[in-house]
């Protein structure tokens, strides 16, 4: 029987929304205060949903400790307490939370210890969040 196991992780990082494809004025217009030159930070919540058959011996879709280890190694160690703009993934890509969400999805999609990655959701604040799955 197929079920889904979800886990929420916290990480804190800074970013600045700015693209060289736009002028300084256009950046300001597009990104507002998120374009401030020295950046700002968020406490992000990364929610990971793994889907798969429930193992008859354990009752689990995926072992939580193994999932935690994977997310820690692939995502949290990479982004937590960093400046996202300096990560190679964001050198030529604005670290909007849309792009961060897709980056996390790509990092995890083939790395889960069991099950398939159903979605990654990244909450930038309590009031906005972004979700990415294999269909988009």
């Amino acid at each position, binding site marked *: 029987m197929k*079920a889904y196991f979800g886990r929420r992780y916290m990480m804190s990082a800074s970013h600045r929304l700015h693209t060289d494809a736009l002028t300084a004025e256009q950046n300001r217009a597009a990104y507002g205060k998120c374009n401030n030159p020295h950046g700002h930070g968020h406490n992000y919540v990364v929610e990971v949903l793994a889907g798969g058959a*429930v193992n008859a011996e354990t009752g689990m879709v995926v072992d939580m400790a193994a999932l935690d280890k994977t997310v820690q190694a692939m995502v949290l160690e990479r982004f937590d307490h960093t400046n996202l703009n300096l990560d190679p993934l964001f050198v030529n890509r604005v670290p909007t939370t849309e792009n961060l969400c897709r980056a996390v999805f790509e990092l995890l999609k083939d790395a889960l210890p069991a099950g398939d990655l159903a979605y990654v959701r990244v909450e930038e604040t309590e009031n906005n969040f972004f979700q990415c799955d294999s269909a988009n």
Partner: protein
Amino acid sequence: MIELTRRATFSASHYYWNDGWSAEKNAQVFGRCANRKGHGHNYTLEVTVAGEPDAVTGFVVDLKWLKDVMEREVLAAYDHRHLNLEVPEFSKANPTTENIAIAAWKRLEPAIVAAGGARLRRVRVYETPEIFAEYRGEA
């Protein structure tokens, strides 16, 4: 099609154990959850139904009715109980969050089908604010 979700909370104790395994293997796979004296959680049950709003009432389902169904079918059996020892579906299968979501679906679905109208879309169970499982009725 509109999705409508109702939440309820319950508190229960459980442990994880496989009778076919040695004590060592249970401890290795399930860690602290294998403590046979059990431990407990404040669970949140989230039930989502989907349907068209009724032309007269504007409701997909009556929320009070859904609350009563959740209380009668799930909370009455699970709340302030030891899931392994007092809930029949967990006498053999581990009361993992995944299995609780599946079992809650099985308890809820007949009442929702019998009412006609909206259908059950998903059941999500939070074991803590950071850990949850979901069942969507898939085989």
